[in-house]
């Protein structure tokens, strides 16, 4: 729900600035809206593909299966597995976090969960084509690889600290 509050605030800010812009210069506002529309046209084709890909993946890798896979494995393989699953998916927050919470209750370690959450947020295999389009292949892959590696570090850090805090 908090997500939608933020979204609402951003809508409000956008409308306010749009009105200010309209008052200051109609021509520039029209230009701005045209650019906005072009941005949308640029992202749409590939984004539709990404959205469908996400749907396909999530139909086979739903929260139950994820819970089972991550929950069962402990140790390094669990962390790696959690990282890989997090990297591949683009689960909306309101599904991902309750899933993670369930995992926690089920006994999964903080390290695995942190790995899952961290890679979920920072690594995007599914959005890779889009990222490549906006930047280039090397940048997209490098960012994702670095994020993946550091996510594992973050996971172990969190697991370690929460073990003693």
């Amino acid at each position, binding site marked *: 729900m*908090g*997500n939608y509050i*933020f*979204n609402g605030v*951003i809508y409000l*800010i*956008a*409308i306010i*600035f*749009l009105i200010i*812009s309209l008052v200051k210069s109609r021509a520039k*506002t029209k*230009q*701005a*809206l045209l*650019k*906005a529309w072009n*941005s*949308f046209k640029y*992202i749409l*084709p*590939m984004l*539709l*593909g990404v*959205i*469908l890909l*996400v*749907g*396909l993946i999530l*139909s086979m890798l739903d929260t139950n299966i994820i819970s089972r896979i991550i929950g069962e494995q402990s140790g390094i393989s669990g962390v790696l597995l959690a990282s890989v699953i997090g990297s591949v998916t*683009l689960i*909306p*927050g*309101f599904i991902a*976090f309750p899933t*993670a*919470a369930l995992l926690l209750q089920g006994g999964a370690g903080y390290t695995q*969960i*942190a790995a899952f*959450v*961290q890679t979920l*947020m*920072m690594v*995007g295999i599914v*959005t890779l*084509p*889009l*990222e490549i389009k*906006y*930047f*280039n292949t*090397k*940048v997209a892959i*490098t960012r994702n690889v*670095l*994020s993946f590696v*550091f996510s594992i570090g*973050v996971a172990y850090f*969190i697991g370690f600290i*929460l073990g003693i805090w």
Partner: protein
Amino acid sequence: MFLKQYLFFIITLILLGILFIFNFDAGLKATDVVIYSFKEMLLVLPPIFILIGLLDVWIPKETMIRLMGEGSGIKGILLAFLFGTVAAGPLYAAFPVAIVFMKKRVKFSNIIILLCAWGATKIPMLLFEMTALGFKFALLRLAINIPVIILIAYLMGILIKKDEIAAIYEKANDL
């Protein structure tokens, strides 16, 4: 031209059709997710696009360079984190923002910070995380993410050559 753009989409549509044939229920589930994501996209992208359109038209390059470009130092880093943190929407919504920032010559490392922060430290997600996984967990993850993101941005600056970065910025200019 039209077909080429939508090729990826068409292929995934076909895959969805195939899924329906082999496992109708999975097909339905996939469609549910697709509809949800599509609605989210329509909900989240318009205000962001309007804002970056306005930024593109109203904020001069010089201002953006001063704030977040080469030599902006800590200011640029903080602003990059700020934009990423108060954002709404999935990671892909950050990409168009990055384009406009590149047009305005925002420093490359700051753009990486924006992307990573948008993904990992968005406030709406933080709030959710606190309720689902606990205040300690969320706080800890946030705390460690900040230096990690800065480190990743710094490493990217080293790993990606200057002329590659220049080429990416040139491409952004044409959009």
